[in-house]
């Protein structure tokens, strides 16, 4: 397991989290997931260490008898939830302190771990303008190491194009579920069509926009030629207060446009500052956004 990826100390906290899907709030599947949680299913899936507050009826007394440790039995649900994580690996993700990609990977690890803990199917896609790497249909906590290794191996490359990536073969597994897109959403070609396409594949989409401080509050001065890390094109600016005000306004507008787009599509969008501590993002931002419980 990559130590840098996630702090082991709060993996156990993550275990008690659950990735929420708005889809489950309605329809017949709601009952299924809930019933799985109450252990109505008979198909054994996994053990989990006991934590105070767990239903004592779920305790595996046999194991306790053998080992003296308390374990809660997990039973497989008939209706699995597919959690798909899309990680933007374009070059623009390599900026920030910490780099946006690192934060994105950490978030993906956390979310993936939570999902694995809840016996959801987890798929991870790394993309720039196409899917560059993927890990599909992981299930069970024992796959966490595999997930973490995969995530740790990701690095930035190439120009990002969300739509082209999502439309590339094998980018969508076709099963309804939850999709989380971790990106800065700074695509020349836009993100709207891509997200709509993703939504059309019966995915409950959540957009996590990662923006570094450099992008939100650039501390530039003087005459500059800004070179795009992905396209390599330059843009000359003469930094003035007024221009910086205008830029900040543009950033706000861009974020607002994303939020507006998400709102109209009935999906959720989360704005994450890369410098915000990971713990805070997971336990506060994601929680408040209703992504996890």
């Amino acid at each position, binding site marked *: 397991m990559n130590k840098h990826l996630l702090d082991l100390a709060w993996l156990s906290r993550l275990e008690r989290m659950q990735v929420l899907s708005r889809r489950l709030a309605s329809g017949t599947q709601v009952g299924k997931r809930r019933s799985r949680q109450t252990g109505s299913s008979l198909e054994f899936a996994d053990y989990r260490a006991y934590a105070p507050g767990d239903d004592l009826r779920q305790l595996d007394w046999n194991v306790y008898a053998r080992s003296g440790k308390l374990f809660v039995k997990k039973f497989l649900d008939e209706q699995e939830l597919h959690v798909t994580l899309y990680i933007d690996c374009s*070059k*623009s*993700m*390599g*900026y*920030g302190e910490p780099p*946006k990609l690192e934060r994105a990977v950490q978030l993906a690890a956390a979310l993936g771990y939570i999902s694995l803990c809840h016996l959801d199917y987890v798929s991870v896609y790394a993309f720039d303008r196409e899917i560059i790497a993927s890990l599909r249909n992981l299930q069970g906590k024992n796959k966490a190491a595999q997930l973490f290794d995969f995530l740790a191996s990701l690095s930035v490359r190439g120009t990002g194009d969300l739509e082209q990536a999502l439309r590339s073969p094998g980018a969508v597994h076709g099963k309804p579920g939850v999709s989380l897109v971790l990106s*800065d959403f*700074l*695509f*020349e070609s836009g993100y709207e069509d891509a997200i709509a396409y993703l939504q059309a594949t019966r995915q409950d989409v959540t957009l996590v926009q990662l923006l*570094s401080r*450099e*992008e939100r509050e*650039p501390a*530039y001065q*003087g*005459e*500059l*030629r*800004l*070179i*795009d*890390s*992905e*396209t390599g*094109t*330059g*843009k*000359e*600016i*003469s*930094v*003035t*207060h*007024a*221009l910086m005000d*205008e*830029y900040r*306004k*543009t*950033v706000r*507008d*861009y974020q607002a446009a994303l939020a507006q787009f998400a709102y109209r599509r009935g999906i959720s969008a989360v704005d994450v500052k890369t410098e915000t501590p990971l713990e805070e993002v997971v336990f506060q931002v994601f929680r408040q956004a209703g992504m996890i419980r």
Partner: protein
Amino acid sequence: MQWLALGNLGFLLIVPAIAALYLLKRKVEDVEVPSTLLWQRTLQSWEAVRPWEKLQRNLLLLLQLLAAILLVLALVRPAVPMAGAIAEHTILVVDTSGSMLAREGGQTRFQRAVAEAEKAVENLGSGQAVTLIEAGREPKVWLSKSTEKEKVLQALYSLAPRPGETDQRAALSLAGAIASTEEGSGVMWFGDGGGEDLHEPGQSTAAAVSIPGPFRFHAAGRSTENVAVGAFVTQTGSEGTEGLLRIDNHGSQPKKGNISIFGLDQNLLDVGTFSVEAGASQTVAFERLPAMPAYRAVIAAEADGLAEDNEAWSVPYGSGKGRAVLVSPGGNRFLHQALQTVGTVELETETALPGGKSGAADLWIFDGVVPDKLPEGNILLIAPDKKTDWLPYQGVAEVTGDLESVQADDPLMKYVDWREVHVSKSAVWGSIPGLRTLVRAGENELIAAGTLEGKKVVIIGFDLHDSDLPLRPAFPIFMQNAVTWLSSVQSVPIGPALPGEALAVSLTPGAAKRVLTLPDGTSQPLDVQGTTWLFQVPEQTGLYRLTEETDGGSAPVERYFAVHMSEAESDIAPRMLRVSSGKAAGTDNDEDSIEGDAAGQSLDGNAQATGARELTYWIAALALLIVFVEWRVYRRGY
């Protein structure tokens, strides 16, 4: 627009220098950013909302270039040509003669002239100097080659018109002389050219005075309408005083008006009317005016240019005329003629000594007779022939030797030249106390004068027929002196004078205190000796009073004399001054050009020396403002 220092245009090289510095300075720093997407959007909206913002990246450069260009512009010294001075060294001549007092349109000509001169001074370019000359009775240089406008203006404001005349020729000569000593001098004349006409009728186009350098004549005024009191004479007659008033119309329109005659005490004595044709004169006579020491005639006419010449004082002629009795048994044509010529006495002629009391006369003249007793009055005794108790007559003696004046400074001997006079025989008398010898020949006393029993006595020892004195110029002068001295009113009336001229005032001999009162009421005690005093008449018209107190405690003698404006000044018609100048700058040969605004006259050539208002300071101030703006822009980071 003129450029006074075009050579400084070389400083424009600063502009490419600044631009080059900017090019060198404009080192764009490359910064790699995650994505320029947001920047593109920013710049798009930025330039859409504020298209001029594209320029703003060069705003500092533009401002710097603008400031630099303005500074160079200031260095080049641009100037707006104005009607100003005409040369590097301009000699301003301002006429202050009486005709400049004429009012036209609520302003006197002098005020107009000063306003024009002021304009010329204010439009003075830097480096242009001004010499200010007042063309008065004598030209006076107020300022010489001053470049300080303030001083010039102050001197200009200190000028005041006076009722006197102007010696234009002298002023022109002075201006010409100053101009000739300095290269690049020009003369500007502010006046009406009135007063003495410099141009003789026969050679009206010829220039009177030559001036090296440009000459411009600024005619102040164009009106010719003026009515003046040409002359006012009064004479004491047998039935009161008679007055004669001449009214001159110098204008081109017939004039009507009223005349008022006032006495010394400002009481209205008589009124009349006048009606004068254009360019003509009218004489109005007044009779039986009450006796007054002086009279004032005031005329009022419509459309009158000059008000100062509408009033005249007159001191009655013959006032204080004494009564003289000539007793000449043999008759003396010379004496009779001479006494009548003197004119200050009324002469009665007797052939024999009057018997008994025949009344008093102011002056007794005994020719060849000697009264036994001195009559009342002063005495002129000629050729005594007998001894009386007051005259120690000793007979007749031949005169040998030349006549010589003993007391040349005596009032009686004034201007009298005895050298050509010869006398054959003369009476001889012993010494008489109180009399002093005036003329002697050898041992003989020929003429004596003095006070005898309180009476003034002059004794001429010889018969006029025994001498060639009556044929000499000395005779009327001596007679005049003698009669004047002997007259009870001791001096002749003082004649009228013009302001500014020197007036010989005869003084009462022996007066202890003399006070001269000017028309404006100010008095000045006179501390002068002698019988005449050369009085420099101040620039005031009106009635002057000379009060003399004699030692004897008798009533002070008051004498008046009038000072009038010169008749030439009453002719206010402006005249063009024509001057042969090195460069004709504005003197137009056309007589009508006098109607035109002098400032509008074209300036031929020599444009650089014309007056100009420099814009240097304004432009420099603007440059400073732009530097300030640039600083603000820099500070705010635009």
